[in-house]
């Protein structure tokens, strides 16, 4: 494989050096959550031991320093995704929190009875249910982009879904089940040609390839900290400035207001308007450390290495004749959803776990996609840049053991 410094990188993630059931851990559940680099672990440790204080509203030394670190974290995120201004970066509790914010605020300000929202069959529940709830409140409805047998969006069908009642398109950048990398630039272009805004769910994308929100021209972009080697409880919402300015606030509380009286409350400026209460400022700073770590390696290098891993795994897994793969797009991330014939995914997962191979089984919070393929779940192995070809081999060996056991 390429000259990727994999040995060094694995040392940056202490958890990887671990024995489970007497076997070295092969952590292939990165689609669910990712492991943490030392740099981020130590940053959080240092805050807890030396720096913690309330941000924005206190006058003391610690508070001043913490506020600076928090606002620097915002700038780090801004640069990481190429946003024009740091005030367009809103810290939330996660991708789910970000989507709920947009779905609520869009719902309250733009949705009327009879309006339509376009989603796709491959969305994660977090990009379905908030829109369903908004539609239910407002009497609007969902239009769904179908998925082909290869696990790609049917782009022709997509173009035909627009009507003069379409108010929003919300689709995933990369599928958490199929790995498909969607043609999001094209999706945005088409939506804009109909005058419709687009939210891109980057929860499975932003950690795997360089993302530039200006280049994508999307109206909103969301992702989760814990899936990009950062802390839990932190997420990001990027939005175009004029849209964020127009949207009504989502949660009410401290810091998001300008003036409060019982008669009338006026709201603070961006980004604070959308950050109610004490935010997860420690999580935000930890996230920035993870992003800085990734940037120090280079997202382009990470992407290339993961593509090599993907190609290797594709080859090896397709050599198992009893394995049926879901998601066979040429343009996909190193995510593999499959079923061994006559073996329930749960049985597969249980057995390979005992061999130190950590995957996920089930519906992956994408029930409509399961229904599309007429299945109840898959085994999902999701790789990232600290995984190795050796771990691919171990997965394949473990799957062969499953087939032997169940044979």
């Amino acid at each position, binding site marked *: 494989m390429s000259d990727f410094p994999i040995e060094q990188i694995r040392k940056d993630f202490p958890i990887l050096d671990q024995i489970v059931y007497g076997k070295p851990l092969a952590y292939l559940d990165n689609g669910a959550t990712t492991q943490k680099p030392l740099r981020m672990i130590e940053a959080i440790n240092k805050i807890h031991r030396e720096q913690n204080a309330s941000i924005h509203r206190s006058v003391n030394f610690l508070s001043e320093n913490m506020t600076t670190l928090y606002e620097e974290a915002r700038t780090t995120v801004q640069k990481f995704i190429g946003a024009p201004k740091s005030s367009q970066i809103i810290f939330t509790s996660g991708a789910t929190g970000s989507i709920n914010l947009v779905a609520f605020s869009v719902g309250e300000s733009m949705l009327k009875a009879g309006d339509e929202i376009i989603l796709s069959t491959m969305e994660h529940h977090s990009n379905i249910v908030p829109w369903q709830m908004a539609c239910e409140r407002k009497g609007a409805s969902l239009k769904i982009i179908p998925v082909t047998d290869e696990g790609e969006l049917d782009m022709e069908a997509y173009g035909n879904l627009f009507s003069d009642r379409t108010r929003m398109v919300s689709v995933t950048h990369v599928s958490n089940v199929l790995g498909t990398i969607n043609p999001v630039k094209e999706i945005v272009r088409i939506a804009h040609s109909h005058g419709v805004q687009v939210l891109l769910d980057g929860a499975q994308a932003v950690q795997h390839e360089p993302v530039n929100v200006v280049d994508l021209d999307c109206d909103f972009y969301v992702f989760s900290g814990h899936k990009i080697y950062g802390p839990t409880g932190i997420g990001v919402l990027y939005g175009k400035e004029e849209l964020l300015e127009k949207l009504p606030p989502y949660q009410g509380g401290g810091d998001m207001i300008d003036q409060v009286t019982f008669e009338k409350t006026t709201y603070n400026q961006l980004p604070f308007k959308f950050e109610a209460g004490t935010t997860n400022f420690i999580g935000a700073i930890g996230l920035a450390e993870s992003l800085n770590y990734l940037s120090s390696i280079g997202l382009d290098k990470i992407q290339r290495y993961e593509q090599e891993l993907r190609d290797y795994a594709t080859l090896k897994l397709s050599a198992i004749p009893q394995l049926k793969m879901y998601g066979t797009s040429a343009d996909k991330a190193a995510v593999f959803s499959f079923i061994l014939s006559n073996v*329930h995914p*749960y*049985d597969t997962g249980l*057995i390979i776990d*005992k061999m130190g191979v950590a995957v996920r089984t*089930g519906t992956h919070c994408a029930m409509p996609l399961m229904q599309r393929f007429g299945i*109840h779940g898959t085994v999902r192995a999701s790789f990232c840049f600290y995984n190795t070809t050796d771990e691919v081999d171990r997965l394949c060996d473990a799957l062969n053991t499953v087939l032997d*056991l*169940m044979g």
Partner: protein
Amino acid sequence: MPISDIQKEIIEEFASLGEWMERYNYLIDLGKNLPMIDQAYRNDEYLIRGCQSRVWLNAELRDGIVHYTADSDAIITKGIAALMIRVFTGHTPAEILAADLSFIDAIGLKEHLSPTRSNGMVSMLNQMRYYAMAYQAKQQN
């Protein structure tokens, strides 16, 4: 045989097995040999919801004795169901409700029945107990 004796029997069987592969093998065999549930009960009404594998369960009271039948689309889950049925079936509701299921720990299946595991096994166990409660109430009326 009293429930506690059946549990002892199962513990002894598992003691003779080696590490996880033999145990899983045994559960797989149990699953394969579990008599098919009546097709009439393999539907949503008898389904126990769990994220991972589907489990169908039915229970009947005959002569004061509870008879359980179950099925699952996952074979290890089905094997565990077979064990639970072996322990409970043929006993009175009162006996079932009084039983402490120490064998689960003893044979290393605790993780499968931890309340946080979203595999439906805990729900199955609860549902077995609910049936016993329901039949006990029925007997007392």
